[in-house]
């Protein structure tokens, strides 16, 4: 469809006078072709939208799980380093892994929008009161 459109426009452009003469006719033809194009493209739009939505769902799932896992892994790694260099044998890993877990849950809540990122002035907003505000 697009190739025929290009051919028509390239065929008309060298002859300037003929273009003005055939203006009404070619406009009608172009309008019909555009209607046909839109009719064929209208059916194609639907599956692409659906696929895009599904891809967005996958992207959201991968994003949430990777945020959670990354926070836990960073907590475990920092606890391991603390244990290794400060010599506090099991306690650094215990405390920092649990802190990493809490940070991961908070990351997931923040990225889903259940908890807003705290502004510097107000840090005391509880997430149960948030749906009433919205």
């Amino acid at each position, binding site marked *: 469809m697009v190739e025929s459109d290009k051919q028509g426009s390239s065929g008309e452009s060298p002859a300037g006078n003929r273009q003005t003469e055939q203006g009404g006719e070619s406009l009608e033809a172009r309008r019909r072709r555009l209607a046909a194009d839109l009719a064929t493209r209208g059916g194609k739009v639907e599956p692409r939208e659906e696929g895009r939505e599904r891809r967005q769902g996958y992207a959201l799932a991968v994003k949430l799980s990777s945020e959670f896992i990354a926070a836990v892994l960073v907590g475990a790694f920092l606890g*391991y380093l603390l244990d290794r260099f400060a010599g506090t044998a099991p306690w650094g*890993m215990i405390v920092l*892994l649990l802190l990493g877990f809490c940070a991961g*849950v908070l990351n*997931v809540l923040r990225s889903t929008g259940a908890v807003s990122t705290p502004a510097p002035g107000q840090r005391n907003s509880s997430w149960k009161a*948030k*749906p009433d505000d919205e």
Partner: protein
Amino acid sequence: MEAEAAKYIGAGIACLGMGGAGIGLGTIFGNYLSGALRNPSAADGQFGRLIFGFAVTEALGIFSLLVALLLLFAV
């Protein structure tokens, strides 16, 4: 049995607890999805509770992972 081998075997057994957390997470998200398909308009209001249940369930899996990591690296 040497103590080193017992440490590794214990870490492997402790990681079995994460399978239980996986079963629990599948139950939670599957039930949330079936409920959301039955009543999609009420699904967005329960998302906070979904994440809360996810956190509480995943905490137990994290505990078993913690035991495994402690056996591997700190004991």
